[in-house]
């Protein structure tokens, strides 16, 4: 979706990602999704008097890994208390990094070549989870709320971009690329449906070249689809108000996926005053150069580099192949494809079958061995299996884990012996002299006629390319 002529969207994103540590940020309670309510809670998570936070070393390393993957610099940092009253935080403050974040000044390059600056990526703790009872289940109209503190204190990194994005699609591409990077670093499992990543979008509109317009922040978007839809809706709302001669009020807004619209959560005047102050129970975090180098050296290749590596196996990649390579890296299947090609599979076929058939059956990937995959592709490349047959065999191997040669045989996908095909074509040429004459005169459409006849006679077991080769040999 695009805005009316003469308007430009300006978007910045704040992305919260939970870190895949074994324990919480400031205590040894387990950091695991889906446990019984309040079963991973201790005096630190409950904010009991006398409890003291101690920083998790692994959370620091994952935060640095994120920073390095986003080309940030790591600097000495401190923790602050962000004070507010809300039952999801029993201490009545959240420990977060404020004026001195661990990572700052980085960037992320998107697949389309655009660059989004990263202002900062800092550590903070997650809050507890509230369930609102009564009413519609949303806060407004709820009779009461139930709080589970398992999530309270789970380590988060908040990644703040510059206001650099100019369309909802670009914002979505940024979020998707960032997700791939977070998974590659091992910092996050990237499971949006479990709340592992949450997006806040700052949206404003302006006339191109004009100063930034008044922005609204849409909170807690939890899917790429919601992110894109909410931004498009919000920008269109701004344009409608401004073209009507109205003014945008700076505020925080909520996105309703069902209604497909945003609504006011709180205005700037109602914004809390968090009274940040240094957390006296934590000391400065100042990773040594050696520690930083160790984390940086352990970073695996990022998605952009992996896409580039995978593209090297095809000489002149088409745009469909570029898209396919993106899908393959997203699914962490690039190693699989490279290994298959190293074992003799055709590169273009490996990319096509992986991004389609294997992607569709990804949940049962364990059923497909590398050998089975390579065998299937070789049967297809040699013409023993048609493309349709190869897809059917792959789908069945994925579903059942069987042997591709046995499956092809059981389905009657026997290779049509070349002398059988040759005899068949010879008899068809004799039986259809007019068509054969026109084909010899150069009417290529007649090739399809003969392929159709061959397929009919063989119940679809012949390979179209082999038929054309046979026809051309007789021309």
């Amino acid at each position, binding site marked *: 979706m695009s805005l009316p002529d003469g308007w430009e969207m300006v978007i910045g994103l704040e992305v919260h990602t939970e870190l895949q540590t074994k324990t919480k940020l400031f205590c040894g309670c387990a950091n695991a999704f889906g446990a019984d309510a309040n079963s991973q809670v201790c005096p630190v998570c409950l904010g009991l008097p006398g409890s003291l936070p101690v920083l998790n070393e692994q959370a620091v390393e994952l935060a640095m890994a994120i920073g390095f993957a986003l080309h940030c610099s790591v600097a000495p940092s*401190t923790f602050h208390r962000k004070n507010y009253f809300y039952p999801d935080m029993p201490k009545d403050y959240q420990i977060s990094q404020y004026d001195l974040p661990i990572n700052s000044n980085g960037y992320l390059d998107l697949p389309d070549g655009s660059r989004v600056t990263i202002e900062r990526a800092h550590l903070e703790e997650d809050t507890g989870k509230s369930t609102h009872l009564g009413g519609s289940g949303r806060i407004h109209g709820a009779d*009461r709320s139930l709080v589970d503190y398992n999530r309270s204190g789970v380590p988060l990194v908040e990644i703040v971009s510059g206001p650099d994005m100019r369309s909802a699609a670009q914002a979505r591409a940024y979020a998707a690329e960032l997700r791939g990077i977070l998974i590659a670093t091992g910092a996050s499992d990237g499971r949006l449906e479990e709340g592992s990543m949450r997006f806040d979008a700052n949206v404003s509109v302006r006339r191109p070249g004009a100063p930034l317009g008044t922005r609204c922040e849409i909170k807690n978007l939890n899917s790429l689809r919601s992110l894109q839809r909410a931004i498009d809706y919000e920008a269109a709302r701004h344009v409608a108000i401004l073209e009507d001669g109205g003014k945008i009020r700076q505020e925080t807004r*909520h996105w309703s996926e069902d209604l497909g619209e945003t609504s006011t959560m709180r205005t700037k005047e*109602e914004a809390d005053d968090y*009274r940040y102050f240094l957390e006296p129970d934590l000391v400065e975090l100042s990773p040594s150069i050696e520690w930083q180098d160790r984390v940086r050296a352990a970073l695996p290749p990022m998605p952009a580099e992996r896409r580039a590596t995978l593209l090297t196996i095809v000489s002149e990649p088409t745009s469909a192949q570029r898209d396919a390579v993106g899908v393959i890296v997203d699914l962490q299947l690039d190693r699989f494809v490279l290994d298959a090609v190293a074992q003799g599979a055709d590169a273009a076929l490996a990319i096509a079958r992986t991004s389609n058939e294997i992607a569709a059956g990804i949940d049962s990937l364990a059923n497909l061995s590398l050998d089975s995959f390579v065998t299937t592709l070789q049967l297809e490349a040699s013409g023993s299996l048609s493309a349709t047959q190869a897809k059917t065999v792959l789908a069945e191997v994925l579903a059942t884990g069987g042997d591709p040669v046995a499956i092809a045989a059981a389905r009657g996908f026997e290779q049509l012996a070349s002398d059988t095909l040759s005899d068949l074509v010879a008899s068809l040429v004799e039986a259809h002299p007019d068509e054969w004459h026109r084909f010899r005169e150069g009417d290529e459409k007649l090739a399809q006629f003969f392929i159709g006849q061959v397929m009919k006679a063989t119940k679809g077991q012949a390979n179209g390319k082999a038929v054309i080769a046979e026809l051309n040999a007789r021309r």
Partner: protein
Amino acid sequence: MSSRLTREDVAKVAALARLRLSDEELDLFTEQLSKILGHADDMAALDLTGVAATAHPFGLINIVRPDVVTPSLNRDAFLSQAPDVQDFRFAVPRIVGEAP
């Protein structure tokens, strides 16, 4: 220095901290807090050229613990202390407004 901190400032901070103060208490705390802030102003008057900012009086850095799970509390122990519990969760009155 008391001109720096007004009675309205103290009333606002009290409201943010969910403290209900009487008029007498507001007067008392405005005066006391002004003195405390005055002390900070005294330090601001010193020549601190070349003195690095202090994040913590101990001067320690990088105090971290290994990422190893330690036992959590038995939830019955603390839920029994809560005013109201439902489904092993703390039950709280209707929340006005969303989380920050």
